[in-house]
């Protein structure tokens, strides 16, 4: 135990722990940027091999420090490089931020190795001998390795989507998309842009319906859609149903029959809807709060 502690509780390691703690919990919040982002990687890579070797020393007291440190430093470098690059290359969702520019921090690993090997015989017993100081140092080093908490990404909830949202109807462009999709159903936004010489276009909510597996569903017309010639209008239809049950029952498709009045005539757009989500994590720029 004392050998492992003595290996971790060295002045340069303590300094790296302080840098790591202050940068992660103060500087990153006060002045986030490139320098604060890389500083934690540098301090962490300096400290981590020593921590790992101390762990090895704890588990295997007779392990040769120099050789263990060499392999540990090498492994830390490889794993750090992999963690910062492979998720991007393989398109994986991971709970940390992969950033190949962080590889610049690898330059500190030779210093970490030199520091560990050259000071292997130098004992800084004052940190190990005094129980209170020893305990405080262990807490500092352990606490410093707690990086700034990050979320695991925004959760992507399943949503209904219109497969073909844009349609030319006479001289107008009709765009319909699902703007709300929750356990209580879905909300459909309809945007109609009429050319100056086109006939007026409006949505006939009475004749519009959603065909789900269990039957036809009439909408609630929350905002009516009526675009005059040369104008644009935005409407909204709400379809209320037990979407949670639909999801759990495996309902993944539906058909929207969107009835339109075009001048004095009628037109119905039949729009396929799909229910799904690409992945459990990920950025969703098309969503707004």
């Amino acid at each position, binding site marked *: *135990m004392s050998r492992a502690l003595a290996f971790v509780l060295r002045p340069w390691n303590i300094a790296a722990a302080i840098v790591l703690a202050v940068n992660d*919990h103060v500087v990153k919040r006060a002045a986030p940027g490139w320098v604060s982002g890389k500083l934690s990687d540098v301090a962490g890579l300096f400290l981590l091999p020593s*921590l*790992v070797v101390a*762990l*090895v020393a704890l*588990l*295997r007291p007779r392990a040769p420090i120099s050789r263990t440190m060499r392999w*540990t430093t090498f*492994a*830390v470098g490889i*794993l*750090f490089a*992999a*963690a910062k690059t492979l998720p991007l290359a393989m398109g994986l969702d991971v*709970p*940390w931020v992969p950033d190949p520019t962080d590889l610049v921090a690898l330059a500190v690993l030779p210093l970490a190795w030199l520091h560990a090997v050259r000071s292997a015989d130098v004992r800084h017993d004052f940190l190990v001998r005094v129980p209170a100081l020893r*305990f405080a140092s*262990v*807490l500092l080093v*352990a606490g410093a*390795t*707690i990086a700034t*908490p*990050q*979320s*695991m990404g*925004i*959760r992507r*909830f*399943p*949503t209904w989507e219109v497969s073909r*949202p844009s349609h030319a109807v006479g001289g107008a462009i009709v*765009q319909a*998309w*699902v*703007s*709300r*999709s*929750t*356990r*209580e159903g879905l*909300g459909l*936004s309809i*945007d109609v842009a009429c050319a100056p010489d086109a006939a007026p276009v409006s949505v006939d909510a009475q004749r519009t319906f959603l065909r789900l597996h269990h039957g036809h569903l009439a909408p*609630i017309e*929350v*905002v009516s859609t009526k675009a005059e010639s040369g104008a644009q209008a*935005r409407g*909204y239809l*709400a379809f*209320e149903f037990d*979407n*949670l049950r639909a999801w*759990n029952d495996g309902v993944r498709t539906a058909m929207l029959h969107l009835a339109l009045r075009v001048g004095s005539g009628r037109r119905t757009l039949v729009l396929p809807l799909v229910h799904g989500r690409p992945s*459990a*994590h990920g950025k969703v720029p*098309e*969503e*707004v709060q």
Partner: protein
Amino acid sequence: MTRAALLCTTLLCTGCFGTVFHLEHDAPGSGTVQHAPSLDLGIGQRVRPDDPGEQNVTVAPEATFGGGVWDGEWSPASSGQVAAWYGEHDRSHMADQFFGGDSRIAPLWSVGGALGYDILPLGGADRRTTLTFRVTDEGLGVESGWAWEMTSDNHSGFAGIFLSSWSRFFYLRMLWGPERGFGAESGIALDYALTWVWSR
């Protein structure tokens, strides 16, 4: 032992302390659809549903390396355990904000148990195998269990309250029991949690 150390090293370096399996049950978000979104909403954009939170079942083999104070005496302590619990998070895929921490693996509310073994008992006591039942709410919990002191072959029960916090692989636990008195321990917990998570 070397292999175990290398495994710990690998996990430590990659920050890979668990695998989360996302179950599809109850996955849609919550919220009303009766209100039209703002006209500022761009074509093709949608309003993000409300987060119903999530629940999880976790199985976590864990080893702790640290020390603590028991009856005023400091000593190193180390233990291994396999814990399993059911818990709930108010927010999906996010750390519960607690003691500045990332406690997504250990949720704020949970009920579960652990089968543990004292590798290096706190206070130099006999090594024990323990079976513990715990209920935790926002880090404060009650526990009760059974302990088998292996050298003396004594069996005993124990009960107490504790306050615990995790942040990444750092843990802090303060315990009190009518027979054990007050103790506190802290250190590094290496675990690999298998978590099955689904919406509330």
